Protein backbone atom coordinates (compact mmCIF):
# COMPACT_ATOMS: atom_id res chain seq x y z
CA UNK A 1 0.00 0.00 0.00
CA UNK A 2 1.41 3.35 -1.01
CA UNK A 3 1.96 5.83 1.80
CA UNK A 4 2.82 9.49 1.28
CA UNK A 5 4.32 11.54 4.08
CA UNK A 6 4.87 15.26 4.10
CA UNK A 7 6.92 17.25 6.53
CA UNK A 8 6.60 19.53 8.17
CA UNK A 9 2.82 19.56 8.58
CA UNK A 10 2.89 23.12 9.84
CA UNK A 11 5.36 25.79 8.80
CA UNK A 12 5.49 29.36 9.99
CA UNK A 13 8.07 31.52 8.31
CA UNK A 14 8.98 35.13 7.85
CA UNK A 15 8.73 36.99 4.61
CA UNK A 16 11.97 36.91 2.67
CA UNK A 17 13.15 33.57 4.05
CA UNK A 18 13.72 30.30 2.21
CA UNK A 19 12.39 26.91 3.20
CA UNK A 20 11.77 23.42 1.82
CA UNK A 21 8.78 21.10 2.20
CA UNK A 22 9.51 17.39 1.85
CA UNK A 23 7.33 14.64 0.40
CA UNK A 24 8.39 11.02 0.89
CA UNK A 25 6.56 8.04 -0.52
CA UNK A 26 6.81 4.34 0.13
CA UNK A 27 6.58 2.50 -3.21
CA UNK A 28 7.95 2.96 -6.71
CA UNK A 29 6.36 5.74 -8.72
CA UNK A 30 7.61 8.30 -11.20
CA UNK A 31 4.55 10.53 -11.19
CA UNK A 32 4.17 13.14 -8.49
CA UNK A 33 1.96 16.19 -8.24
CA UNK A 34 1.88 19.29 -6.06
CA UNK A 35 -1.32 21.17 -5.24
CA UNK A 36 -2.14 24.35 -3.36
CA UNK A 37 -5.27 24.90 -1.27
CA UNK A 38 -6.35 28.29 0.09
CA UNK A 39 -8.60 28.33 3.17
CA UNK A 40 -12.15 27.27 2.33
CA UNK A 41 -11.23 26.64 -1.29
CA UNK A 42 -10.50 23.62 -3.42
CA UNK A 43 -7.16 22.28 -4.63
CA UNK A 44 -5.30 23.97 -7.47
CA UNK A 45 -2.62 22.19 -9.48
CA UNK A 46 0.89 23.62 -9.09
CA UNK A 47 3.36 21.15 -10.57
CA UNK A 48 3.38 17.84 -12.42
CA UNK A 49 6.62 15.84 -12.13
CA UNK A 50 6.77 12.82 -14.42
CA UNK A 51 10.34 11.53 -14.33
CA UNK A 52 13.39 11.13 -12.16
CA UNK A 53 15.26 14.42 -11.91
CA UNK A 54 12.30 16.51 -13.06
CA UNK A 55 12.42 20.10 -11.87
CA UNK A 56 9.67 22.67 -12.33
CA UNK A 57 9.62 26.31 -11.25
CA UNK A 58 6.89 28.89 -11.00
CA UNK A 59 7.70 32.20 -9.39
CA UNK A 60 9.07 31.62 -5.89
CA UNK A 61 8.26 27.91 -5.88
CA UNK A 62 10.42 25.13 -7.27
CA UNK A 63 9.59 21.43 -7.17
CA UNK A 64 11.86 18.48 -7.85
CA UNK A 65 11.57 14.71 -7.95
CA UNK A 66 14.10 12.00 -7.04
CA UNK A 67 12.42 8.68 -7.80
CA UNK A 68 15.35 6.64 -6.51
CA UNK A 69 15.08 8.27 -3.09
CA UNK A 70 11.26 8.36 -3.39
CA UNK A 71 11.41 12.02 -2.46
CA UNK A 72 10.05 15.26 -3.82
CA UNK A 73 10.81 18.71 -2.50
CA UNK A 74 8.97 22.00 -2.79
CA UNK A 75 11.38 24.85 -2.25
CA UNK A 76 10.17 28.31 -1.34
CA UNK A 77 12.46 31.23 -2.14
CA UNK A 78 12.07 34.62 -0.47
CA UNK A 79 8.61 33.87 0.85
CA UNK A 80 5.82 36.42 0.56
CA UNK A 81 2.49 36.55 2.40
CA UNK A 82 0.56 35.47 -0.73
CA UNK A 83 2.19 32.05 -0.50
CA UNK A 84 0.31 31.31 2.73
CA UNK A 85 -1.77 28.20 1.96
CA UNK A 86 -1.80 24.45 2.45
CA UNK A 87 0.39 22.49 0.04
CA UNK A 88 -0.28 18.87 -0.82
CA UNK A 89 1.86 16.37 -2.66
CA UNK A 90 0.23 13.39 -4.35
CA UNK A 91 1.73 10.26 -5.87
CA UNK A 92 0.19 8.13 -8.59
CA UNK A 93 -0.06 4.56 -7.30
CA UNK A 94 -1.45 3.12 -10.54
CA UNK A 95 1.54 2.40 -12.75
CA UNK A 96 -0.82 1.25 -15.48
CA UNK A 97 -1.42 4.88 -16.30
CA UNK A 98 -4.96 5.29 -15.08
CA UNK A 99 -3.99 7.84 -12.44
CA UNK A 100 -5.01 7.04 -8.91
CA UNK A 101 -3.44 9.56 -6.59
CA UNK A 102 -2.58 9.12 -2.93
CA UNK A 103 -2.24 12.43 -1.10
CA UNK A 104 -0.04 13.51 1.74
CA UNK A 105 -1.71 15.17 4.72
CA UNK A 106 -0.64 18.61 3.56
CA UNK A 107 1.71 21.30 4.85
CA UNK A 108 0.04 24.41 6.19
CA UNK A 109 2.33 27.33 5.39
CA UNK A 110 1.96 30.68 7.11
CA UNK A 111 4.16 33.53 5.94
CA UNK A 112 4.41 36.34 8.46
CA UNK A 113 5.39 39.94 7.68
Amino acid sequence: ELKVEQNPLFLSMQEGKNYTIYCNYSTTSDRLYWYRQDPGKSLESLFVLLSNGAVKQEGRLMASLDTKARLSTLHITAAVHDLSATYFCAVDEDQGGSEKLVFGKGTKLTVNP
Partner: protein
Amino acid sequence: DVKVTQSSRYLVKRTGEKVFLECVQDMDHENMFWYRQDPGLGLRLIYFSYDVKMKEKGDIPEGYSVSREKKERFSLILESASTNQTSMYLCASSAGTANFGYTFGSGTRLTVV
Protein backbone atom coordinates in the same frame (compact mmCIF):
# COMPACT_ATOMS: atom_id res chain seq x y z
CA ASP B 1 -11.73 27.25 -19.25
CA VAL B 2 -12.08 23.64 -18.22
CA LYS B 3 -14.22 22.98 -15.23
CA VAL B 4 -15.38 20.54 -12.65
CA THR B 5 -18.63 21.79 -11.16
CA GLN B 6 -20.10 20.62 -7.88
CA SER B 7 -23.76 21.45 -7.57
CA SER B 8 -23.74 22.80 -4.01
CA ARG B 9 -21.15 24.78 -2.11
CA TYR B 10 -22.82 24.28 1.28
CA LEU B 11 -25.41 21.74 2.37
CA VAL B 12 -27.13 21.07 5.69
CA LYS B 13 -28.98 17.77 6.01
CA ARG B 14 -30.65 15.85 8.79
CA THR B 15 -29.51 12.51 10.14
CA GLY B 16 -31.05 9.66 8.18
CA GLU B 17 -31.70 11.66 5.03
CA LYS B 18 -30.57 10.39 1.63
CA VAL B 19 -28.12 12.92 0.22
CA PHE B 20 -27.00 13.38 -3.37
CA LEU B 21 -23.82 15.26 -4.24
CA GLU B 22 -23.48 15.99 -7.93
CA CYS B 23 -20.33 16.56 -9.95
CA VAL B 24 -20.13 17.47 -13.63
CA GLN B 25 -16.99 17.93 -15.76
CA ASP B 26 -16.77 19.45 -19.22
CA MET B 27 -13.34 18.13 -20.20
CA ASP B 28 -14.41 14.75 -21.62
CA HIS B 29 -12.31 13.08 -18.92
CA GLU B 30 -12.45 9.34 -18.47
CA ASN B 31 -11.70 9.28 -14.74
CA MET B 32 -13.67 10.79 -11.90
CA PHE B 33 -13.10 10.65 -8.16
CA TRP B 34 -14.78 11.53 -4.89
CA TYR B 35 -12.72 12.47 -1.82
CA ARG B 36 -13.58 13.72 1.61
CA GLN B 37 -11.30 16.10 3.44
CA ASP B 38 -11.15 16.34 7.21
CA PRO B 39 -8.75 18.28 9.44
CA GLY B 40 -5.73 16.21 10.34
CA LEU B 41 -6.73 13.37 8.02
CA GLY B 42 -6.03 14.92 4.64
CA LEU B 43 -7.88 13.70 1.55
CA ARG B 44 -9.37 10.23 1.62
CA LEU B 45 -10.67 8.48 -1.48
CA ILE B 46 -14.28 7.33 -1.27
CA TYR B 47 -15.04 6.03 -4.76
CA PHE B 48 -13.71 6.42 -8.26
CA SER B 49 -14.72 5.60 -11.80
CA TYR B 50 -12.66 4.97 -14.92
CA ASP B 51 -15.61 4.74 -17.31
CA VAL B 52 -19.35 5.17 -17.63
CA LYS B 53 -21.31 2.76 -15.42
CA MET B 54 -18.05 1.64 -13.83
CA LYS B 55 -17.21 2.26 -10.18
CA GLU B 56 -14.58 1.12 -7.74
CA LYS B 57 -14.32 1.45 -3.99
CA GLY B 58 -11.68 3.68 -2.56
CA ASP B 59 -10.32 3.64 0.96
CA ILE B 60 -13.48 4.63 2.85
CA PRO B 61 -16.58 3.56 0.86
CA GLU B 62 -18.74 2.57 3.84
CA GLY B 63 -21.95 4.54 4.00
CA TYR B 64 -21.58 5.84 0.44
CA SER B 65 -22.50 4.78 -3.06
CA VAL B 66 -21.95 6.36 -6.48
CA SER B 67 -23.55 6.57 -9.87
CA ARG B 68 -22.03 7.29 -13.26
CA GLU B 69 -24.70 7.05 -15.93
CA LYS B 70 -23.03 9.58 -18.24
CA LYS B 71 -19.36 10.28 -18.84
CA GLU B 72 -19.55 13.84 -17.58
CA ARG B 73 -21.46 13.23 -14.36
CA PHE B 74 -20.41 11.39 -11.20
CA SER B 75 -22.79 11.42 -8.25
CA LEU B 76 -22.01 10.58 -4.65
CA ILE B 77 -24.89 9.24 -2.57
CA LEU B 78 -25.09 9.10 1.19
CA GLU B 79 -27.73 6.43 1.71
CA SER B 80 -28.59 7.49 5.26
CA ALA B 81 -26.63 10.52 6.38
CA SER B 82 -24.93 10.42 9.76
CA THR B 83 -23.17 13.11 11.76
CA ASN B 84 -19.77 11.49 11.14
CA GLN B 85 -20.25 12.24 7.45
CA THR B 86 -20.03 15.95 8.13
CA SER B 87 -17.08 16.93 5.97
CA MET B 88 -15.78 18.73 2.89
CA TYR B 89 -16.41 16.62 -0.21
CA LEU B 90 -14.19 17.13 -3.24
CA CYS B 91 -14.85 15.82 -6.73
CA ALA B 92 -12.00 15.51 -9.24
CA SER B 93 -11.54 14.35 -12.79
CA SER B 94 -8.57 13.39 -14.93
CA ALA B 95 -7.79 12.39 -18.48
CA GLY B 96 -5.89 9.32 -17.30
CA THR B 97 -2.74 10.20 -19.19
CA ALA B 98 -0.74 11.30 -16.12
CA ASN B 99 0.26 14.53 -17.83
CA PHE B 100 -1.98 16.88 -15.91
CA GLY B 101 -3.09 15.14 -12.74
CA TYR B 102 -6.49 15.94 -11.34
CA THR B 103 -8.76 18.92 -11.79
CA PHE B 104 -10.80 19.53 -8.66
CA GLY B 105 -14.24 20.99 -8.19
CA SER B 106 -14.83 23.78 -5.71
CA GLY B 107 -16.00 21.37 -3.01
CA THR B 108 -19.21 20.83 -1.05
CA ARG B 109 -19.18 21.44 2.67
CA LEU B 110 -21.79 19.08 4.08
CA THR B 111 -23.10 19.38 7.62
CA VAL B 112 -25.29 16.60 8.97
CA VAL B 113 -27.31 17.59 12.04
